[in-house]
């Protein structure tokens, strides 16, 4: 497990604490790959993305995150373990998905559309909640509604993604 940078100079984050959080999540999710968490501390924004070097259990997973995604929203510039768990956990699940053969067609994270992002986030956040990570379901439902519309059939789509455990990319790309 590697965290970059090893020492933060703009914010009060501790690389070891981030590594511990990511390590615990990887254990819960059954991920044995080497992992790099790359934090951009120059921005308080919260974009997160994940990539995997190759589709194998020993390929390196890289989680790239802007510092806001790991931040304690009550104490700015400080690490928020709860926020970090939700952000890193989602990205580790994405990386784990990417190793599956039925995710070959998934575009790189930074090329995902807003809808693809929202659908994949719903699928990941639901699974995280079921392994015991504290996740606010309504937060992800609201984001999903913003991308797909405020309607009952959209809510039904969200519910399907949230409760699923074994989807391929096509089900995320077109959740209808």
């Amino acid at each position, binding site marked *: 497990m590697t965290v970059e940078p090893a020492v933060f100079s703009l914010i009060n984050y501790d690389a070891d604490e981030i590594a511990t959080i990511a390590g615990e999540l990887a254990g819960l999710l059954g991920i044995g790959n080497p992992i790099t968490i790359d934090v951009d501390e120059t*921005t308080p924004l919260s974009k997160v993305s994940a990539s995997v070097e190759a589709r194998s259990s020993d390929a390196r997973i890289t989680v*790239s995150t802007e510092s806001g995604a790991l931040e304690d929203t009550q*104490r*700015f510039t400080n690490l928020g373990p709860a926020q970090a768990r939700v952000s890193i956990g989602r990205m580790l699940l994405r990386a784990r998905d990417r190793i599956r053969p039925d995710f070959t067609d998934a575009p790189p994270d930074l090329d995902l559309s807003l809808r693809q*992002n929202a659908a994949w986030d719903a699928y990941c956040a639901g699974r995280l909640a079921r392994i015991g990570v504290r996740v606010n379901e*309504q937060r992800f439902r*609201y*984001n999903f*509604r913003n991308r797909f519309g*405020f309607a009952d059939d959209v809510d039904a789509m969200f519910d399907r993604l949230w409760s699923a455990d074994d989807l391929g990319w096509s089900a995320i790309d077109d959740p209808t």
Partner: protein
Amino acid sequence: MRQFFPVQDLARDERFVQTNMAARLADKRSAVIGSTRADGAHRKSAKSRAANNRLTPDRHDASDAARSLMHGIMVGEIQALEGAGRTAHDFPAGDGTGDTIPFELKLDMARQAWDEARHVEISAKLSDWMGTEIGQYAENTVLFEAACSDDPVLRLAGVNRALEGLAIDVFTQMKEFGQLAGDPFLEFCEDWMLADEVTHVKMGSDWLRKVTEKDPDRRAKALEFQQVVDKLFSFGGTRGDTEESPIGLARRFRELAGFTDDEVDDIAEMDAVALAERKAKVREMQEAAQV
């Protein structure tokens, strides 16, 4: 009942954590486009936002940014309620000279407190609808601080004109956000609260003129104070006319609330200065940290 309540004594339960402007502006990071290093290097995450910062649904972080702003609105409403309530109570009724305020002004402040209480309830429900827990974000107490002046006229300038003026800008932005995203509750609720805010600003504009009618020095001092508060409420250019600012200036609604075109232009100029200062400060802090 106690008068002149200091900000540190505001009653909050354990869910709330408070912060202030000094702490916010000490943050060495920046979300503002254009605050890249002096050597022109771009941040690693330059892809994370489109060409502007305006809070619209097409931003990748739109939902979370809207949730954060909604929480800011909710705590702002709590402080506005406290501010209006204090002004109704802190000063004796009189002809408006000295530390007195006309009884009708007290009635307007009481009405405003009632409006703000309703806004708190609406904002709390909207926060819940958007997936935010009460107290999830730090509460910036700058709004109430503007309501702590010993001079009621300065409170009118700081709270009703500057603070409620900012509320007009924020509600307009959020209403448009709801409209574009197709969120019926957000659009509807923001529209109704916006109508109240326009009324509050108008009350401030009218009372400020009336109470200082025969005291031009006091009026000048109040308008000067309003400028200081307006710049503070720009939050380092978070509000402004250009798309670099997440929140725009709602010119039409400000006009309805009694702002002149010149006054709005002055605020826009001040916002631009605040944004430039914030960018320079962030650059300086990041260079000092050698990032």
